[in-house]
């Protein structure tokens, strides 16, 4: 080994604690990069492979009743590779040992068992036999939640008739990787039930007809043209508008998860790399200042400037590579863990782990670059140092008077405090960046943990402000308005309120969106409309009310007009004024006064769902009654869902908080520890002299650590501001049509973020304090610096 490399090695060993702290910050950056990109790719690849193997369709459409020949016509459309017509319906399931009714989604499979599209991935058993109408396949999560195996049975109310179904198979489907019942996925409450086509067409009087169709496109075919064609063909048969994968629930949810991972890989790694670069800059400029004479010597004996530069660059490259090694390993492990978690949360039959070699290469390149950039200034200075100058001690540090002479304020301060002030003023940039580095740590916590506050707010507004009902009963088809009174008479129902849903398409110029209009009574008290400030909005008699998100999509505001195409029995396109814009965080919404909607539909007052408030003590009676109501197609249990949602949140919370607190702690710790160590190296002699003069350990420590205490305090407000901006852009970035986060940050979130950073700083200060306590008092007297 060459002598210089041996020096490098010894330097690394001597500086191990600081090297470790910087490498750790680097590692955190690499870890988040590898973790996020690895999980994102794994999830994406798994989904793609699953779609490919099980022929997930590209376009989905439903109709009321379309003759089977239409399937052939759609199959013959240009750009279409294959189609599968189906029958899908909702049903209430009655499962032994479960008080509340479960929601069933019935989906037909071809009699011959040859599924063309959205093929089931059978885990157990077989597909239903055509001659046996009561044989079904259920989805695996549902089966697991109830301990079902082939041979077990459960009850279902199918088109008003109570039937016993026998499970013959357990499967997974690419269409239902993620399904939501009420608000959250609830495997117990939602069953996917596949039955033979014959059985379902008999049950719903759909002989020779279908009510749903899936279409696979030829490679490279854009869906838009085909969607228009399908809409045209299905229109006479109650077509409710075709849509592509983007509007398919399971697919869209996975997309938003993928987006989040991508956002994580764009935001977090740069923060860590920035801080690491700064730390490299600090440690290297100090090292080079200490080694001026050695550099002079090296030059004097004939080493070139480039050789000197390369020597120091090697040091930072080693630090960066250490960071990459630790970060990439941790990221790979955690990425696999996260992918596995996804595997549990989403329902995949298999998982593909794919981080990709390139991401490791990228990690190396960005980490080494960040470190080299940080080193650039001091290395350049070292390379340019003429040997004669290098051998002389550096020009003494210039300190400035903080205030002009004779200003009394200064003489009131203890000299130890004056020292702190002068040190900050002497290196304002370093002080600023130290503070900024710590503020990034605060910002990261505020910018991630705000999500908890926002979700709380979202739940409060949505379920305790707007949708205040405990449950919603949806009917299989519209019913006369009198059905409300029957609902009111159900056991345990304290209050009931009707709603009417009509499939529609909204248009403003070329902007359009398919969405049901919800009719509500003008005096509704359960399902209410709230404006942006959370105040109740009374339903206007005329016009349509849009949620802010929908208004945004259609680019209309209050007072504008939208074109509304009604898409049920009565088909008509009307122009409606936007009479109000309301806030809603979940989904898109369009509302009308129910009477106005009935008039528009030219129908007698009718309703499609009833919201109820239930007496908690009689809830089981209500559940029992609903299980036997022929016309109820599904039941949403908002209140129960909120409770479950909060539980799940609490579980996820611990992990999320732990990870982010750890990451933020690493930044704060790294910045303070390195800063204080470098300061100690610069001021050690001075501090030891003060100890000789009779200053206590505590007093001497304060001179050094007080500076960091001050910089930490400055970092807090800066961090709150940056955190707010980060939260703002996160909320904006995560907003989808399904789900939006209101930007709410509680004071306690700012508070906790500050506490974490204060604790991390205090911890590193304590470690440095131990070094200050061990300062060698005699050593400093023997030598000139």
């Amino acid at each position, binding site marked *: 080994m060459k002598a210089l490399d041996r020096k490098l090695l010894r330097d690394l060993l001597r500086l191990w604690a600081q090297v470790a702290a910087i490498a750790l910050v680097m590692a955190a950056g690499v870890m988040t990069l590898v973790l996020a990109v690895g999980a994102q790719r794994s999830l994406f690849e798994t989904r793609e492979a699953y779609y490919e193997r099980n022929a997930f369709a590209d376009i989905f459409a439903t109709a009321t009743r379309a003759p089977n020949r239409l399937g052939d016509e759609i199959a013959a459309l240009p750009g279409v590779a294959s189609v599968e017509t189906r029958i899908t319906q909702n049903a209430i399931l009655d499962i032994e040992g479960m008080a509340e009714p479960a929601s069933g989604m019935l989906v037909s499979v071809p009699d011959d068992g040859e599924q063309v599209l959205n093929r089931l991935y059978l885990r157990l058993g077989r597909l239903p036999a055509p001659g046996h109408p009561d044989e079904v396949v259920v989805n695996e999560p549902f089966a697991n939640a109830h301990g079902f195996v082939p041979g077990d049975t459960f009850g279902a109310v199918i088109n008003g008739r109570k039937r016993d179904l026998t499970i013959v198979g357990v499967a997974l489907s690419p269409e239902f990787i993620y399904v939501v019942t009420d608000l959250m996925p609830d495997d117990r409450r939602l069953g996917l039930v596949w039955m033979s086509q014959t059985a379902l067409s008999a049950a719903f009087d759909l002989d020779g007809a279908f009510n749903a169709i899936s279409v696979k496109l030829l490679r490279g075919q854009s869906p838009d043209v085909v969607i228009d064609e399908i809409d045209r063909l299905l229109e006479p048969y109650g077509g409710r508008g075709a849509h592509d994968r983007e509007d398919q629930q399971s697919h869209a949810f996975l997309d938003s998860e993928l987006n989040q991972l991508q956002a994580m890989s764009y935001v977090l790694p740069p923060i860590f790399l920035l801080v690491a670069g700064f730390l490299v800059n600090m440690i290297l400029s100090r090292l080079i200042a200490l080694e001026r004479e050695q550099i002079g010597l090296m030059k004097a004996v004939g080493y070139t400037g480039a050789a000197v530069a390369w020597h120091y660059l090697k040091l930072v490259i080693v630090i960066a590579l250490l960071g990459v090694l630790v970060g990439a390993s941790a990221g790979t492990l955690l990425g696999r863990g996260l992918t596995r978690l996804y595997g549990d949360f989403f329902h995949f039959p298999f998982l593909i782990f794919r981080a990709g070699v390139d991401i490791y290469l990228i990690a190396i390149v960005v980490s080494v670059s960040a470190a080299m950039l940080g080193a650039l200034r001091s290395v350049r200075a070292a390379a340019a140092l003429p040997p004669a100058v290098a051998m002389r001690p550096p020009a*003494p*540090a*210039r*300190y400035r*008077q903080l205030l002009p*002479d004779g200003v009394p304020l200064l003489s009131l301060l*203890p*000299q*130890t405090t*004056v*020292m702190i002030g*002068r*040190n900050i003023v*002497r290196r304002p940039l370093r002080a600023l960046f130290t503070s900024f580095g710590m503020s990034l740590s605060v910002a990261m916590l505020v910018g991630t943990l705000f999500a908890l506050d926002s979700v709380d707010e979202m739940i409060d507004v949505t379920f305790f402000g707007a949708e205040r009902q405990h449950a919603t009963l949806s009917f299989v088809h519209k019913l006369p308005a009198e059905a409300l009174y029957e609902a009111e008479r159900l056991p345990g129902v304290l209050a009931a309120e009707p709603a009417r849903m009509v499939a529609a398409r909204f248009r403003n110029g070329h902007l359009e969106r398919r969405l049901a209009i919800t009719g509500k009574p003008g005096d509704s008290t359960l399902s209410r409309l709230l404006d942006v400030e959370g105040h109740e909005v009374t339903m206007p008699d005329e016009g349509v009310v849009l949620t802010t998100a929908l208004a945004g999509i259609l680019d209309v505001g209050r007072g504008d007009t939208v074109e509304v195409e009604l898409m049920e029995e009565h088909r008509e396109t009307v122009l409606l004024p936007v009479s109000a814009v309301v806030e809603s965080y979940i989904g898109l919404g369009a509302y009308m006064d129910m009477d106005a909607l009935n008039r528009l539909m030219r129908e007698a007052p009718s309703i499609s769902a009833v919201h109820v408030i239930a007496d908690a003590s009689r809830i089981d009676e209500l559940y029992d009654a609903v299980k036997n109501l022929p016309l109820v197609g599904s039941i949403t249990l908002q209140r129960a869902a909120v409770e479950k949602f909060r539980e799940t949140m609490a579980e996820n919370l611990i992990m999320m908080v732990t990870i982010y607190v750890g990451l933020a702690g690493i930044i704060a710790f790294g910045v303070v520890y390195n800063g204080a160590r470098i300061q100690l190296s610069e001021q050690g*002699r*001075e501090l030891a*002299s*003060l*100890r*000789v*003069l*009779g*200053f*206590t*350990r505590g*007093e001497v420590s304060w001179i050094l650590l007080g500076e960091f205490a001050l910089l930490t305090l400055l970092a807090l407000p800066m961090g709150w501001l940056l955190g707010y901006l980060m939260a703002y852009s996160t909320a904006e970035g995560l907003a989808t049509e399904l789900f939006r986060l209101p930007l709410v940050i509680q004071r306690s979130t700012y508070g906790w973020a500050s506490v974490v950073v204060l604790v991390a700083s205090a911890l590193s200060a304590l470690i440095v304090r131990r070094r200050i306590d061990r300062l060698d*008092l*005699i050593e*400093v*007297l*023997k*030598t*000139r*610096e």
Partner: protein
Amino acid sequence: MSDGPIYTIEGITKVYRTGEVEVHALRGVDLTIDAGEFIVLLGPSGSGKSTLVNILGGLDTVTDGKVFFRDEEITAFGDGELTKYRRDHVGFVFQFYNLVPSLTARENVSLVTEIAHDPMDPGEALEIAGLPADRHNHFPAQLSGGEQQRVAIARAIAKKPEVLLCDEPTGALDSKTGIRVLEALAQVNRELDTTVLVITHNMAVGRMADRVIHFADGSVARIEQNEKREAPASIAW
């Protein structure tokens, strides 16, 4: 020169262990120093002078033996008591000044007066040490070596310590400047009745002392008592 001994040193030894090697820096020193004395320590390099002074100043510990400051055994002190001892009783002047670069001359002195019981005014201390008034607000980097040493002396005397320990205070200075520094020390000894111990390599300096202690190989070789102390100005080297 009257209140009895300020230091009583009883058979102290000091052994430095660095790995396998043992260095006997002090090999049994017995000594009594009276309050108000001006003492010069002479001896070849490595003979243990600094080690002794560091122990007297509470900076280092002994391997064996005892040191009493008046009635208190400082060799039995813990770190906290040593700190308090240095703070309240001892002034130090070093070869390399050891000033705080971020504080002006006056502030360097205030640094000590702020934690002292009954200090003098920093300006007064600088005056005694002989730093011209127009330099009081200069930073160390703006002062010459001799001026810095005078700030160090001012810093050491400002709290009116009972002892002033000086380890080669003129070591880095030319003779003219060195003499001014020595004059300042003599003045402190005379006017404040401070006990002064000066380590030096300059035999001539011994002439201004009450006693000259010659060190050799870790112990006291001989002690010279001066009949008459000479003024620093008359010492030439």
